[in-house]
């Protein structure tokens, strides 16, 4: 279980997270939506310990990760996989080496086993035969899929997705959304997705939460969300310029 308790974070005096409280259910996919620059990625970086809060707690399985030493935090991080907005692939390594990287760093297994596991997960994400390419030689959608493969290679309990469909055409966005759903069905991870792709959100999310002005203002199932009476939620879902959301 991942719990954020009264989490606050400011940058240059601007409060991005303001006493934020949220719990992410186990084995569920929670999609956090909100405006660009509204603190969604900041929240995600707090969950994995890439940022430290000004106040509040990040509890992973009941452990406050900000009270941990570097080595203990790294042990917790082995439970996570994260897919970055632009893939964040190591650009000096091939697709194969990128996906094999966590295996080589953390497991003492034979080269044959590494190959088997890498080729299997590349097949899962539909990238057979692309293993020898460099990240610069593949498209944005393929880079995201390599990112998914790399994140999944250690069978993590928790998967974080930072805007997985941003910058992709609608068809490729749907491919990525379907990939997330099929990988979730196969690996049964707890998923947290940061997104402002509304159609993808309703498709992938078991639970949807909306972050607005540093707090979660609404949380519920996709159906509950669609029927929400909250004017901010209604405006965001409709994509209208008119409404309470300050531009």
């Amino acid at each position, binding site marked *: 279980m991942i719990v954020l308790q009264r989490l606050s974070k400011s940058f240059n005096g601007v409060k991005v997270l303001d006493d934020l409280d949220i719990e992410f259910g186990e084995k569920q996919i929670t999609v956090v939506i909100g405006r660009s620059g509204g603190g969604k990625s900041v929240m995600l*970086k707090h969950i994995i310990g890439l940022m430290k809060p000004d106040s509040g707690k990040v509890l992973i399985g009941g452990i406050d990760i900000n009270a941990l030493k570097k080595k203990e935090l790294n042990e917790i991080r082995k439970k996570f996989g*994260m897919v970055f907005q632009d893939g964040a692939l190591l650009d000096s390594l091939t697709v194969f080496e990128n996906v094999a990287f966590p295996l080589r760093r953390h497991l003492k297994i034979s080269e044959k086993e590494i190959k088997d596991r890498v080729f299997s997960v590349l097949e899962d994400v539909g990238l057979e035969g692309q293993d020898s390419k460099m990240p610069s030689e593949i498209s944005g959608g393929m880079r995201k899929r390599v990112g998914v493969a790399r994140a999944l290679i250690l069978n993590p309990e928790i998967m974080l997705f930072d805007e997985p469909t941003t910058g992709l055409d609608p068809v490729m966005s749907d491919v990525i959304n379907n990939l997330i759903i099929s990988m979730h069905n196969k690996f049964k991870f707890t998923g947290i997705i940061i997104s402002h792709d509304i159609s993808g959100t309703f498709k992938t999310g078991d639970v949807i939460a909306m972050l607005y002005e540093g707090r979660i203002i609404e949380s519920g199932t996709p159906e509950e969300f669609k029927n929400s009476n909250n004017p901010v939620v209604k405006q965001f879902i409709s994509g209208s310029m008119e409404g309470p959301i300050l531009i």
Partner: protein
Amino acid sequence: MNIILIPFEKVGKFVLYTVDELGSIAIYIGESFISIPEYFINFENLIDQMIFIGIDSFWVVGLTGLFTGMVLSLQAYYAAKIVGVTYMIGPTVALSMVRELGPVLTALMITARCGSSMASEIGTMKVTEQIDALEVMAVDPYYFLSVPRILAAMAMLPVMAVLCSLIGIIGGYVVYVYFLGLNHITYIEKIYQYIELSDIYNGLLKSVFFGAILAVISTFKGFQTTGGAKGVGRFTTQAVVLSSVYILFADYLLTSILF
């Protein structure tokens, strides 16, 4: 009132910036080396960096040493001829190269070649979230990126400085014998007579410090990078300029202590 305060404000800002920067570098060195006992040294990366800093830099360091030795021999000749001590050209070239120019020029050339590369490579990784990706994969980026570069620079700088000095002495010999037409035995004999082992040791010790300075500053600036492609350029420039200045400053300090 403001006009009076402005210079004080600027001095204050500069002092605060310098203290902040030096404190950050000290913390960075601590964090980098704390990771060694936890994870041991990443030998694969260490060897890659030793090749990059050492073998791949051979030509640039060799040519620097060669031309420096040649020009030293030529310049020393004009002065030595006036007072009739041309036999001292060999020791002048050798001592200048071994004690001073070999280590310093090697460090400056490797800063330009490898320090800039370290800063821009790590800087690019920082702005494209590759450093974050390493952390998320539970890989300590200092252990993975900084420590191999710092240790490789400390190990390879002395080797390259020796090569630079040796090639410089050979360059000086070529000018002394073939262009100036002087006696080759005198050149070699006088070098043996005047150069001491401590000159070589101290030159090597300087190189170890220079290697540490250039790699620490360059990787530190890489990790500090923000602001996209423009930021990578800005922090790479800072890395090269700061490394060069700190190397020259350290050279003065070490020379006054060691010699």
